[in-house]
């Protein structure tokens, strides 16, 4: 039986991608960092906040890596919000000392404000990184959804899209995998936070060209299966955005 408060969870259909986040059912806001363990190397994606939240993520990463934090040779942050960047300097102290942080050029400028002083690899649309095994990740920029420097990451081995805030949701009734009501929870997050239709449409156009088996967002639930992925893209395309103006 999985204890979602304490255990890292191996993502269904993959052999090496772990959910190391937490579902805050009180606030209705899950935070989902992910860990890819590729043989003897690992990448931590969107590490998360500080404080008691850091402790949760830290302990889950420790369990997934059996304590060997130095396996983490790479980290990535997909935009500059504190809910994914704040713990960067804390992780930087315990992972491989030569860790590389993959970050978009427009986001990199903000990293010193999180007191992250390690090495950075700045990426642009379509750039790739490879693990020693040859496994390739592609960085795809999604400008203005919801930051100028936002990007997502596509893992071609497992056909997984790490989508950052896109396809995220607000859900008190949180589950690790999206249920039949998830698309409404997704609107609850997207409508208030996405600014304009043009940028959202551009991101969706990029995603439609990919072969996606599952979407792993930084909030909300994992959207599993090609048909569900397709439906989610359609819903985001039709979302009414920029309504605070």
């Amino acid at each position: 039986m999985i204890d979602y408060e304490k255990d890292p969870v191996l993502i269904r259909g993959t052999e090496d991608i772990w959910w190391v986040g937490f579902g805050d059912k009180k606030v209705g806001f899950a935070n989902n960092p992910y860990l890819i363990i590729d043989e003897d190397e690992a990448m931590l994606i969107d590490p998360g906040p500080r404080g008691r939240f850091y402790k949760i993520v830290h302990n889950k990463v420790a369990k997934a890596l059996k304590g060997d934090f130095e396996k983490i040779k790479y980290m990535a942050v997909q935009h500059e919000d504190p809910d994914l960047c704040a713990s960067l300097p804390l992780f930087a102290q315990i992972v491989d000392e030569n860790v590389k942080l993959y970050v978009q050029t427009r986001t990199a400028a903000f990293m010193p404000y999180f007191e992250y002083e390690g090495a950075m690899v700045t990426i642009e649309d379509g750039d790739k990184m490879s693990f020693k095994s040859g496994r390739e990740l592609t960085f795809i920029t999604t400008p203005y959804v919801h930051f100028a420097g936002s990007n997502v990451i596509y893992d071609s081995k497992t056909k997984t899209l790490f989508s950052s805030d896109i396809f995220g949701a607000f859900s008190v009734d949180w589950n690790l995998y999206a249920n039949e009501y998830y698309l409404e929870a997704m609107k609850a997050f997207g409508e208030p936070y996405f600014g304009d239709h043009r940028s959202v449409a551009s991101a969706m156009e990029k995603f439609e060209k990919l072969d996606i088996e599952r979407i792993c967002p930084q909030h909300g639930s994992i959207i599993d299966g090609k048909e569900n992925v397709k439906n989610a893209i359609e819903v985001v395309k039709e979302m009414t955005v920029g309504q605070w103006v």
Partner: protein
Amino acid sequence: MDMKQFIELVAKRGYGIYGKETIEKMAKDAGISLSPTGVAISGNVEAAARKFFDAYSKTTPVAAMNLKMMAKMHNIKL
């Protein structure tokens, strides 16, 4: 969009945020019955709506924000 239609929309959104059971209970407590064919309200529509929206907003700020956003989108005065 009238108030009944708006309640229906908010409830649907609430299924995502809170789950179906919680929303159905919240609605029932406000005198609103939700069914696939629409919304039925036994008493005063405005009073029932207010009670439902209060409960909806009280539980978490993200739901309160969503309700405000939806009201703005559909020109509904809360």
